[in-house]
């Protein structure tokens, strides 16, 4: 045993130790595993493949915009490609990315449990995810869908493209999301080890809990609205067809009742990751644990009352629009509470600048930027001008990519030693983070200017006066894509050739670092008894830097 922080004992890594990775090597031992860590790794690999697919779509779309008019594809291909980019990124990558991969791997360990509450159901969720993803690929093979990822009726019920297999795939993916959320809620309630009280859970667990509530309550509404789109497209029953008494705006209400909370399914886990990284690399307890917890729960609940801000120009009343606008701004207050807490946490901390913390800085800048533009588009008078322009595209990419993807990369680096038992190269890590940040900013900042100047989203063609900004954006996308490819490459190399990782390379106090890297199959030999809370950096007073 070695002592890393004074008074805290962490196990030492020994050669040929039994881990979850070397417990068995057969394909069957992976395919039929109920080990939450292996399921988490399978999700991580699958969602990363989805990210690559969606990323290639994005790069090709950006190339199309190098020149006005046709560059490399026709307009129908363009419409199908931006739709499939959205579908793959939202449902196949981003929604499961942090919860299903990192959440699965970490949640039970952070609670001191051996596994989730329903391990077999967990495996089932993974296979449901695979089937759903396969249907999205089948849709792609059938030519893809051209409605945009929002499937607005009535066009989505009449489009000649492959609408039905696409929405069917998303419907199935939704089941996976619901079952994962259910599993996490029950696990958090029933599997906590002695001493891990609600207010001594790591903040990442709180973020997962809040996310799971949204997953369980919002996803079924999406499932239903997509069912109806599928039925209308297939049987022509016309539930959203005005000729037969239907109302297309109702579709928008139902869709956004899910899809606005869904953006919190994407950002809350990212906030949870950040809430772990900031205390660890500042070696300091969070400025306010409770502020972060309650703001997560607050976002989860307020998020259900904001959907109308997508519909300011869809004919909803002025009063409704004002109410939705104000409720949307409440989210900004909760988010600001988090941002200030993170920044205050760093004050007088003992800061160690490693790659995950660099990603936090990128996150902080991009998320605040994206969040402030979110307040702007939640203001009705401004949104009328920006609605359906590149301004909105830039806004949600700043939050979803600048926020969630950046946090996902931070998580990938932060927990890389825990998951793989290897260290990545810090030098490459810092370089990758810098390129990705620069590439991201170059890609999406010009889109704010484009949108403000009147460039509509989803348009194939554009006025030649927009070309300079489009070219800058496209060049930026190459830097972003290159940085991502480089990062995935050096991480892949590190999986096989990286230096062996100790149990707690960052000197963190959070519970997952009490187990070896990689963790043994059972996580803990017996029910653990954590001597300190996950952020008790002030006891003993001077933590040792590692």
């Amino acid at each position, binding site marked *: 045993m070695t002592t890393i922080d004074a008074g805290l004992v962490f196990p030492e890594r020994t050669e040929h130790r039994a881990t979850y990775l070397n417990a068995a090597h057969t394909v069957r031992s992976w395919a039929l595993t109920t080990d939450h860590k292996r399921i988490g790794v399978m999700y991580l690999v699958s969602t990363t493949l989805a990210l690559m697919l969606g990323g290639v779509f994005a790069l090709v779309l950006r190339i199309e915009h190098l020149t006005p008019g046709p560059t490399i594809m026709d307009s129908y291909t363009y419409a199908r490609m931006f739709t499939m980019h959205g579908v793959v990124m939202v449902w196949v990558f981003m929604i499961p990315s942090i919860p299903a991969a990192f959440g699965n791997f970490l949640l039970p360990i952070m609670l001191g449990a051996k596994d989730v509450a*329903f391990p*077999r159901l967990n495996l089932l969720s993974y296979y449901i995810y695979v089937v759903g993803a396969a249907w999205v690929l089948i849709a792609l093979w059938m030519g893809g869908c051209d409605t945009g990822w929002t499937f607005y009726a009535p066009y989505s019920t009449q489009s000649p493209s492959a609408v039905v297999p696409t929405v069917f795939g998303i419907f199935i993916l939704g089941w996976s999301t619901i079952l994962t959320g259910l599993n996490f809620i029950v696990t958090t*309630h029933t599997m906590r080890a002695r001493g891990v009280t609600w207010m001594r859970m790591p903040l990442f667990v709180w973020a997962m809990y809040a996310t799971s509530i949204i997953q369980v309550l919002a996803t*079924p509404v999406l499932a*239903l*609205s997509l069912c109806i789109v599928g039925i209308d497209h297939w049987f022509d029953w*016309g*539930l959203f067809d005005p000729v037969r*008494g239907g109302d297309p705006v109702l579709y928008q209400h139902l869709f956004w*009742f899910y899809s606005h909370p869904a953006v919190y399914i994407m950002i809350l886990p990212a906030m949870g990751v950040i809430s772990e990284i900031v205390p660890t690399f500042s070696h300091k307890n969070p400025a306010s644990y409770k502020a972060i917890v309650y703001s997560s729960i607050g976002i989860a609940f307020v998020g259900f009352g904001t959907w109308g801000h997508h519909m300011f120009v869809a004919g909803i009343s002025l009063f409704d629009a004002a109410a939705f606008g104000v409720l949307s701004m409440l989210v900004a207050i909760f988010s600001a509470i988090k941002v200030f807490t993170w920044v205050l946490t760093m004050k007088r901390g003992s800061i160690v600048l490693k790659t995950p913390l660099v990603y936090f800085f990128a996150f902080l800048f991009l998320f605040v930027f994206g969040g402030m533009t979110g307040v702007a588009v939640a203001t009705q008078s401004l949104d009328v001008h920006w609605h359906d322009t590149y301004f909105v595209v830039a806004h949600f990419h700043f939050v979803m990519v600048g926020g969630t993807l950046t946090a996902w990369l931070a998580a990938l680096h932060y927990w890389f030693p825990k998951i793989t038992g290897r260290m990545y190269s810090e030098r490459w890590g810092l370089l990758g983070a810098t390129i990705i940040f620069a590439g991201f900013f170059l890609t999406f900042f010009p889109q704010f200017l484009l949108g403000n100047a009147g460039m509509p989203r989803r348009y194939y063609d554009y006025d030649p006066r927009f070309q300079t900004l489009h070219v800058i954006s496209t060049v930026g996308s190459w830097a972003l894509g290159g940085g991502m490819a480089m990062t995935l490459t050096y991480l892949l190399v590190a999986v096989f050739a990286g230096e062996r990782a100790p149990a707690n390379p960052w000197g963190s106090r959070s519970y997952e670092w009490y187990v070896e890297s990689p963790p043994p199959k059972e996580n803990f030999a017996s029910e653990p008894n954590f001597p300190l809370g996950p952020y008790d950096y002030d006891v003993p007073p001077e933590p040792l830097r590692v």
Partner: protein
Amino acid sequence: MSDASADFESLEKQAHAASLGMWVFVASEFLFFAGFFVLYAAYRVEHPRGFGVGVETNTLAYGTVNTAVLLVSSYTVALGVHALRNGRARAAAGLTALTVLFGGCFLAIKTAEYLHHFREGIFPGGAGDFFVQHPDPGTKIFYTLYFCMTGLHAIHVTVGMGILAWLAARVLRGSVTPYAPHPLALGAVYWHLVDLVWIFLWPLFYLVPGNVR
């Protein structure tokens, strides 16, 4: 939900986890149906007359008999859970099987009712001769919603029957026992969910035409 395993330190904790899981699932299911209820509410406000005509022309007798069948089936499954908790496993299995039988009756009556609609010229999507005599678009949307919502409910009845049949077999085989009756109790929770949804469908589609004249 019954796959909570040896990871739990006590049976009590396992039963608690399974029960919480089922209630979370029920909440999710309610939100699924809620989407249709929202559509119904919005369309009824837009087309009060058409919906009134729909309710008045619907087959009240079929719907009411089916309500009775489902309510009795909820009673029998509750009796079954009670019997199992009191150590009468064979009675519990019998009552659960009876519940499945009532579920089958419900589906049979529902099928006859659908066939009756088809003979009257009522098809989903506003197709059929019936809508020539009743051209209000609200009536078309009423019947499309009727087929969608009762159809979705019938799918849930079928799933519930499968779950209860499986549980009855497990009670007979002795893998669900009076000492750990929670799987049957949770199966019953699901069945009550199915029942509860129907209790809302019945007034919406058969009982309340509103002020249409």
